[in-house]
């Protein structure tokens, strides 16, 4: 698997974050694109629902999904039964390795059934298949697997990895796409997105036509109907599922909804939160393989239900995390994601949701590995709350980031310097006189180090641990007047009778 999304553990976030901040192109692309998407989301919801109804809609979706998780055992059983009644073959996988093994065993039976060895596979975009490393597993088994989502395709031929849940190549420019098309597809050099798309379209047509296996994920599973729901904008799911004789769908168990009657709010929220569209261009419903008399569509439809750490979260106090519908809104809203980009998170899931989900999905059997392997992720946040505000299912990401930080402390996974600093702080905070003295001293020290233009005071080159901050920006200096003095002065003013009568 690509080192970018499956790094050596324990994962140290800092080198990649530093590189991303120093990368001018990345700063421009990611900053501009995320800002635009975030604005679009707000304006579309404002125009379509109004602030109050948007809030209500999010609450409805949050409650609906939480209630589905609270009865996931019942819903899952119901889904399996109905999906089998449609003629689907349902599998279950405990972890990534087992999920990949199921795909390989399906592929191994291909020759016996269709008189041809399975060597070509078309894949529709899916986060879960990235998570389990499916493309690598298939490729190693001699099955050439092509990502059909345009962004994912460009990343695949460039040996790069997705850095955003919805817009995977947000970190790359058109020139990079142009170069890889020349190199891999032998097309003439063009940077025009329209021409590049046409080249990719022509290339994929042949693949859809001749592929042996199609692979996809699903956005929702409807328990009452046994239906899988898949959202795309490009239409690559419909083409991936329509051509090849065998289709394998990988779905995380958290995708269950009670039924079609609960679906409408989610489809409306997903598209608007992700890209500002009223609905994704294609919302596809699948109920088993092709029926008697139908001339196309898969002859076999496999649904692989994947656990891979999800039951662990379901049985913990963090069940709420499984409400996530992978819309990417929290990434677009996050000031940290905007600066460090998706690859800094060292996981398929980046941004605020990735920072909480990645350690939880990777806790392992002893429930201890996740944070030990990703100790930086809970700190990759300013706790500003923008992610919670953007989340269509109201996952309280800041709360879980704080919980994770607390766990880092109690398990002494935090750096020793942090513990020492906090101990010193606690000791000082309990001694008011000393505390005030220390604040005064630090103020004086800062003013000696800093510069002053009469209106503002700042430090350009701070010493010690503050040096990291001043590498890319100035550090402000506390004002000459301490807050305590300011408060006393203003309290006196407030209590004094007004000079003019209020109008």
């Amino acid at each position, binding site marked *: 698997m690509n080192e970018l999304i499956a790094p050596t553990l324990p994962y140290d976030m800092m080198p990649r974050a530093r590189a991303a901040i120093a990368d001018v192109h990345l700063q421009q692309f990611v900053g501009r694109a995320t800002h635009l998407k975030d604005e679009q989301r707000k304006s579309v919801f404002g125009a379509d629902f109004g602030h109050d109804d948007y809030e209500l809609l999010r609450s*409805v979706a949050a409650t*609906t999904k939480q209630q589905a998780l609270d009865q996931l055992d019942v819903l899952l059983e119901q889904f399996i039964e109905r999906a089998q009644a449609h003629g689907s073959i349902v599998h279950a996988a405990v972890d990534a390795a087992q999920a990949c093994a199921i795909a390989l065993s399906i592929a191994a039976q291909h020759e016996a059934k269709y008189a041809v060895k399975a060597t070509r596979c078309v894949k529709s975009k899916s986060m879960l298949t990235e998570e389990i490393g499916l493309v690598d597993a298939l490729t190693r088994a001699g099955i050439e697997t092509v990502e059909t989502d345009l962004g994912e395709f460009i990343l695949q031929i460039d040996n790069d990895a997705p850095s955003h849940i919805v817009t995977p190549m947000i970190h790359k420019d058109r020139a990079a796409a142009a170069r890889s098309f020349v190199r891999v597809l032998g097309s003439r050099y063009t940077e025009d997105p329209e021409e590049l*798309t046409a080249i990719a379209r022509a290339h994929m047509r042949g693949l859809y036509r001749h592929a042996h296996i199609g692979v996809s994920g699903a956005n929702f599973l409807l328990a009452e*109907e046994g239906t899988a729901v898949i959202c795309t904008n490009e239409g*690559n799911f419909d083409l991936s599922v329509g051509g090849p004789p065998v289709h394998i769908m990988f779905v995380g168990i958290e995708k269950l909804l009670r039924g*079609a*009657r609960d679906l409408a709010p989610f489809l409306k929220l997903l598209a608007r939160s992700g890209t500002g569209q009223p609905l994704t261009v*294609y919302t596809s419903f699948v109920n088993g393989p092709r*029926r008697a008399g139908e001339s196309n569509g898969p002859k076999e439809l496999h649904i692989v239900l994947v656990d891979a750490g999800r039951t662990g979260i379901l049985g*913990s106090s963090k069940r709420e995390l499984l409400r996530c519908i992978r819309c990417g809104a929290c990434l677009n809203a996050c000031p940290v994601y905007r600066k460090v980009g998706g690859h800094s998170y060292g996981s398929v899931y980046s941004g605020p949701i990735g920072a909480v989900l990645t350690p939880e999905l990777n806790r392992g059997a002893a429930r201890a590995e996740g944070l030990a392997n990703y100790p930086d992720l809970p700190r990759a946040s300013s706790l500003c709350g923008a992610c919670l505000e953007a989340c269509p299912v109201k996952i309280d990401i800041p709360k879980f980031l704080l919980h994770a930080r607390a766990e880092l402390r109690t398990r002494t996974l935090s750096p020793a310097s942090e513990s020492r600093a906090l101990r010193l702080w606690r000791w000082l905070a309990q001694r008011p006189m000393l505390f005030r003295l220390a604040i005064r001293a630090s103020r004086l020290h800062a003013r000696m180090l800093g510069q002053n233009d009469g209106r503002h005071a700042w430090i350009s080159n701070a010493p010690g641990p503050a040096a990291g901050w001043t590498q890319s920006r100035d550090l402000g200096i506390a004002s000459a007047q301490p807050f305590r003095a300011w408060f006393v002065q203003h309290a006196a003013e407030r209590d004094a009778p007004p000079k003019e009568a209020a109008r």
Partner: protein
Amino acid sequence: MNDATIRARDAGVAALLERVRRAVAAQPASAMNAVDLSIARRTSASNSDLATIFATRASSVGMRVTRCASDALHTTVAAIMRAHADTSTPNQTLRTVVAIRDASLAQRMRDCLSSCPATLARDDDADGLFDCDVGITDVDCAIADSGSLVISTIGRMRNAWITPPIHLAIVFESQILADLVDLFEIRNECTTAASTTIITGPSKTADIEGVLVTGVHGPAYVEIVLVADESKHVADAHALIR
């Protein structure tokens, strides 16, 4: 597939269900109240001019809507076909697949094609679908609120609406539902047909530097012919059924 494989598969599913059962029981259910899903509705079913809302919204997501009277369907479709044939190579004929559930409408369209620069493709040739220029379909229903088409595989060749670069959809005004919420309140093709797709625009991507490009894998052009119903009575009858 041999018995051992099937047994292993079923054991895996049973084990997953058991793990989920234990996990669900490990935490108390959240104390959340029942919810009113109707908050998701944006367009009211009592709206008197759903056809206009549908036409406006469908246009705003990038589909082209041409409205016509029932007796002008033939000439409208022919005009659209000619316009596309002209913008392609001169004197080109458009290879067209007709995937229409309503048998009499299907026949009307096939007749119509004889007066168009078009050749008729078989509607049961999965591979040949990739060589078609146009797919003509009717719809199961349409949604005014989002300007969407709902098309199932019942009585229609799958993917006839997504494989060719041009999709021409015939929608009757009486088929328009107000909101997505209505679609799921009635028992419908989405959860019964082998496959159903809700289409809201031409195939799109903005993967390369956020630049919007249409016609990635699906059609770049979605032409909707919105047909006025012959009589108010038909519309009322449809409304009653719904």
